[in-house]
């Protein structure tokens, strides 16, 4: 489904600030895979997300989606296959537009946008039904401006907007990190149920160790731009946070350093 083949990225190449963000990273996701990604600061997790989505172009290597080489496509062209939720709850929705208008934008993902009405009666019913999935009453507030919603509500809406058109790939970049624990738990639960239900191929960056173990069927660990550990479902089931941290220390020779790390 998603194949990352020898992708490398340098920041500030040729200067004193040169930094290896990704070093020959290889990753292959099968359809329906739900992979959680952990790693220390500057391990290249976000860079990996940005290169897959096309925000950045890699310096070497290729990205394939369903066997198609998308390495040279721009971000907006790739988003036809890729749904994304950002860390910032404000980033995934347009605040001065209503909930149904935001849903209409998500609904036309990857299609050409012409002069037909964005919100019609038929589409409104679809939106209402999809919003019910979230269970937070947004289906009754279709005409509310998104800017009036709380951070948790906005992130739930972002998650729904990123997923309800069933993109081939879902990228979640620490999408619960900016929320308080209760909201984060809500979004985590929703993520789990939506990804399962829609069978989305998902890559999720998290700094929450417990979440990384609990969610998904595969876990990868990154350090210094490399994927240093790839834990399959069979081993992941019985994994504990202690084991995971120990594993990291053993391979990288240092403690996992993430200033926002949550052990669980």
């Amino acid at each position: 489904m998603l194949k990352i083949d020898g992708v490398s990225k340098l920041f500030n190449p040729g200067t004193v600030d040169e930094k290896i963000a990704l070093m020959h990273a290889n990753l292959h996701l099968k359809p329906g895979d739900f992979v959680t990604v952990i790693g220390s600061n500057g391990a290249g997790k976000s860079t990996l997300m940005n290169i897959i989505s096309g925000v950045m172009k890699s310096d070497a290597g290729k990205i394939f989606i369903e066997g198609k080489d998308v390495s040279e496509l721009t971000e907006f062209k790739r988003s036809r296959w890729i749904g994304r939720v950002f860390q910032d709850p404000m980033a995934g929705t347009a605040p001065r537009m209503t909930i149904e208008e935001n849903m209409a934008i998500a609904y036309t993902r990857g299609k050409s946008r012409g002069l037909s009405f964005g919100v019609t009666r038929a589409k409104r019913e679809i939106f209402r039904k999809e919003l019910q999935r979230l269970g937070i009453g947004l289906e009754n507030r279709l005409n509310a401006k998104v800017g009036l919603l709380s951070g948790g509500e906005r992130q739930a809406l972002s998650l729904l907007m990123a997923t309800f058109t069933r993109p081939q790939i879902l990228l979640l970049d620490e999408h619960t990190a900016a929320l308080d624990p209760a909201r984060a738990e809500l979004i985590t639960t929703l993520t789990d149920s939506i990804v399962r239900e829609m069978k989305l191929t998902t890559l999720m960056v998290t700094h929450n160790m417990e979440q990384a173990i609990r969610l998904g069927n595969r876990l990868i660990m990154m350090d210094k731009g490399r994927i240093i550990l790839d834990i399959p479902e069979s081993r992941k089931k019985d994994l504990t946070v202690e084991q995971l941290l120990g594993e990291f220390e053993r391979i990288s020779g240092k403690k996992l350093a993430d200033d926002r790390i949550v052990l669980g």
Partner: protein
Amino acid sequence: MLASMQGAVESGLLYALMALGVYITFRILDFPDLTVDGSFTTGAAIATVMTINGTQPWIAIICAFLGGAAAGLCTGLLHTKGKVNGLLSGIIMMIALYSINLRIMGKPNLSLRNQMNAFDQIPVIVIAIVLAVVIKILLDQFFRTDLGLSLRATGDNNRMIRSFGSNTDLTTIVGIALSNALVACSGALIAHHQKFADNSMGIGMIVIGLASVIIGEAIFGSKSIFRATLAVILGAIIYRIIYALALRVPGMEAQDMKLITAVIITCALVIPTVRRAINTKTSARKRTAEVLSGLSRPGGGGR
């Protein structure tokens, strides 16, 4: 007095198209587009020259609309493809248009007296009302289409709309072109209304457009696109009325009008801010006093 009021409403409605253009760039796209000063004159120049050369006035005005769109297209390309700062790309086009407009007209001003006129058959006020209403409704509908929604989202949350597969370069260019098309159309109508075109008639137009948007929004609100476009049109009319009244003040002359415009827009910007600050302060004081008196009372809750 009454005649001058009717004149103010008429030209307010004609200038409203320009104000709607400014609204599209400033408010919807969040792009400060200064092309307006040039494209307003471009519209007037195209319509005047074509009319003098025997083209039907309404066809000339449609050509002015297209000419404005072309000017906006250039600004949009400069900004998105050339990565030139938004303000700067507008200024560059504005200065380029100054020469282009002179080229179109051949000399600094042209008279439309004794020529065919767009307002020959039907009174100005009727045409102006119909045009303003029709264009307002068309814009309202456009901003509800898929393309319109992605244009609004481009100004609202650029990153989000790109993640949903919209080419923000394209939506930005479309928005700026549409805006300047309306501005040029307004310029063409004004030229026909006042029966001349002048190479300097667009100077300060951006400020007048902004003043209309700000006055309209301050008085009538901007909760939805429908409300906002209505507010912009009414704002343009109110601006013209204030302008007409200011001209009647003894000692005021036409040459003072740019200064008056500056004063009007300053008031429109500063008064709401000051009012908000005063409101916050008084309500905070009142509330604090309430809380304090509640606390001093024995058993009183400090809710």
